[in-house]
């Protein structure tokens, strides 16, 4: 169970495939409580990530994380771009010292919280990253946890991002960034030998 450039790439490719497949669904989720572009934003981003990893094969984990971060930062835009970008940038930094997923995800989740100022319960991707980083630490991340974290955003009132303009009216809708983040963790679970 160790993180390598190979299984990191596999994980990211699997994440990219899920995003591409669910692009319209993600944008649809973003329509009632956002601006309907989350699927397009993410699809553009993961495409750039894959292009980057193909055109320049990273030698080290840190390079891989950095390339992913830069591709996301420069291609996603919107709110999710700097957040996903920050997550991978923090993982890049942390990967200089360790390849331990617990530490990497703890750094990523902290980075997202700092960049966006959202807390758990604000109906954002933080509601997925934060508890699932804890699950990784506990060594028992499972798809059921992912589903639970994602679905829990449905009943929350949005406090950050565009959905917050809706106030109470945001209740009853999944948070799109939480859903796309869920794919990231689902892809992680599916990647052989990474966890």
């Amino acid at each position, binding site marked *: 169970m160790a993180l390598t450039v190979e299984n990191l790439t596999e994980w990211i490719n699997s994440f990219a495939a899920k995003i591409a497949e669910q692009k319209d669904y993600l*944008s649809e989720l973003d*329509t009632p409580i956002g*601006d*309907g*572009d989350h699927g*397009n*934003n993410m699809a*553009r981003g993961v495409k750039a990530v894959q292009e980057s990893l193909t055109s320049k094969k990273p030698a080290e984990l840190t390079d891989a994380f950095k390339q992913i971060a*830069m591709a996301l*930062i*420069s*291609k*996603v*835009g*919107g*709110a*999710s*771009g*700097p*957040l996903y*970008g*920050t997550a991978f940038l923090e993982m890049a930094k942390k990967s200089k010292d360790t390849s331990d997923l617990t530490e990497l995800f703890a750094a990523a989740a902290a980075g997202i919280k700092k*960049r*966006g100022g959202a807390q758990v319960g604000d109906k954002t991707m933080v509601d997925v990253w934060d508890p699932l980083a804890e699950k990784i630490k506990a060594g028992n991340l499972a798809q059921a946890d992912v589903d639970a974290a994602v679905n829990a955003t449905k009943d929350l009132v949005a*406090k*950050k*991002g*565009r959905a*917050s*303009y*809706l*106030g109470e*009216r945001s209740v009853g809708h999944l948070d799109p960034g939480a859903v796309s983040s869920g794919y990231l963790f689902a892809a992680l679970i599916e990647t052989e030998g990474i966890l």
Partner: protein
Amino acid sequence: MKKIINDPSNVVPEMVDGLVRSYPQYLRQLPDTQAVVRADEDSMADKVGIVSGGGSGHEPAHAGFVGKGMLSGAVCGQVFTSPTPDQIYEAIKAADHGKGVFLVVKNYSGDVMNFDMAKDLAEVDDIETKTIVVDDDIAVEDSLYTQGKRGVAGTILMHKILGAAADKGASLDDLEKLAQEVLPNLKTIGIALHAATVPEVGKPGFELKDDEIEYGVGIHSEPGYKREKIKPSKEMAEELLGQIDKTLNLDGSKKYAVLVNGMGATPLMEQYIFAHDLLDLLKEKKIEPAFMKVGNYMTSIEMAGLSLTILELKDDQWLDYLNYPVETIGW
């Protein structure tokens, strides 16, 4: 969706290309970006640069306000999507002429975060930057625990005032102080008759019935604070002015600048009629605007509707700045 476009995923590069090539006397595009800066390099010498931008779909904002006396550069994100830090950073570099760069950001999580990351990048280059986050849209409750109010059409008046001050030699600190003084006096509220269609989405951001209007919408089809049956223009003006009055406490002894802003698909005919009703209502309060403008400045693609911005002119100099001559496409 019926639009004069080619590939929906390519609208921004084609639009920026068309804009810059139509107006080479005003704009220059930075290589490999969707960022534009003033063609008139000389006009920026020895002055603080002003960079704004955000998602596209608000044309003529923001690129249309780049030019002598107003913005130094503008970054055009994907439609309704904040531009990315690398592009903002390129615009900051091009706008810096040794005196630093002032960033005008509309208050959306994406814009705030991306401009923030660009600021970090610029710091590495020792380019000093300061930022104002414009949040003039009073349709949204302000709160420490949320994103707070949105930045909308009032941003144009902020650009105008800061641009004039920068052209007259204000320092980065002066501009920050000025922006912070202006901001609390700048209030906007909008109304929509139908929502915009983002090309890549292909259908309107929300659906209104044939006789419905929505009060308090944002410029990305964010929902407003109430939906009602359509009313005469005069009653819409009453509602919007009433909302602004609640926060600005309009008073005949004070001076105001007024901006009636079309959202993209609403013809000037309707905007002028609204202006007529608005001016009647202001007159009842013994207010004659010291400055007024009516037209499409901060649009929302082809949303039908308009917004009303009122700025209380606490300082006579702000009025001079609003009247200061500029060379731009859109002002």
